[in-house]
């Protein structure tokens, strides 16, 4: 069964460093998303991506964040200068449109 895959599963980085989280969405899906979940808290929407551009972003997704779909397969989230409060599980998801999104296993980002 097709699935969303994310790498790495765990990333530890120093404050101020750039990180790139990678995702391979399900191949026939058209909509791509990044969510994050701080330990013990709600899933929070970061950004959605459709037709090679951002369709919507939340207040969390500030200038430090960017997304890219460089090669028609990968979908990446870059955090330019990480802060301690960026520590969270980051989930990539994809969907055909409405009807439910399929999530990856997540990348645990720890900023020290």
């Amino acid at each position, binding site marked *: 069964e097709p699935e969303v895959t994310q790498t790495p599963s765990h990333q530890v980085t120093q404050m101020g460093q750039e990180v790139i989280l990678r995702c391979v969405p399900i191949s026939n899906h058209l909509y791509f998303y990044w969510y994050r979940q701080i330990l013990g808290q*709600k899933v929070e929407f970061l950004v959605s991506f459709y037709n090679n551009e951002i369709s919507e972003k*939340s207040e969390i997704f500030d200038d430090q964040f960017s997304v890219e779909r460089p090669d028609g397969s990968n979908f990446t989230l870059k955090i330019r200068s990480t802060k301690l409060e960026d520590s969270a599980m980051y989930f990539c998801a994809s969907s055909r449109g*409405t009807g439910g*999104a399929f999530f990856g296993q997540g990348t645990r980002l720890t900023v020290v």
Partner: protein
Amino acid sequence: TQLLEQSPQFLSIQEGENLTVYCNSSSVFSSLQWYRQEPGEGPVLLVTVVTGGEVKKLKRLTFQFGDARKDSSLHITAAQPGDTGLYLCAGEGGRSNYQLIWGAGTKLIIKP
């Protein structure tokens, strides 16, 4: 602000008992999705309900969408320890076409 409120937040019952989890909002959604999340993993889509009053069954799980498309319930019959997990509802197509609005989840523990 659109909110989805889930209740109860936490439920611990014996194997074989029945239970119902609720997801309520003052907002109308075009669809509502239920996910299950294990610790350290991404949410897994269980079902999407679209039509007001719709009932969907997935083995021992019964999902219902309210007539006004503002609320939903998940009923589990004869709960088993394997049902243990965090159950999340998420609404689609409220203020935004792209962003899922998430409930905080119901943490369910089924004791053998």
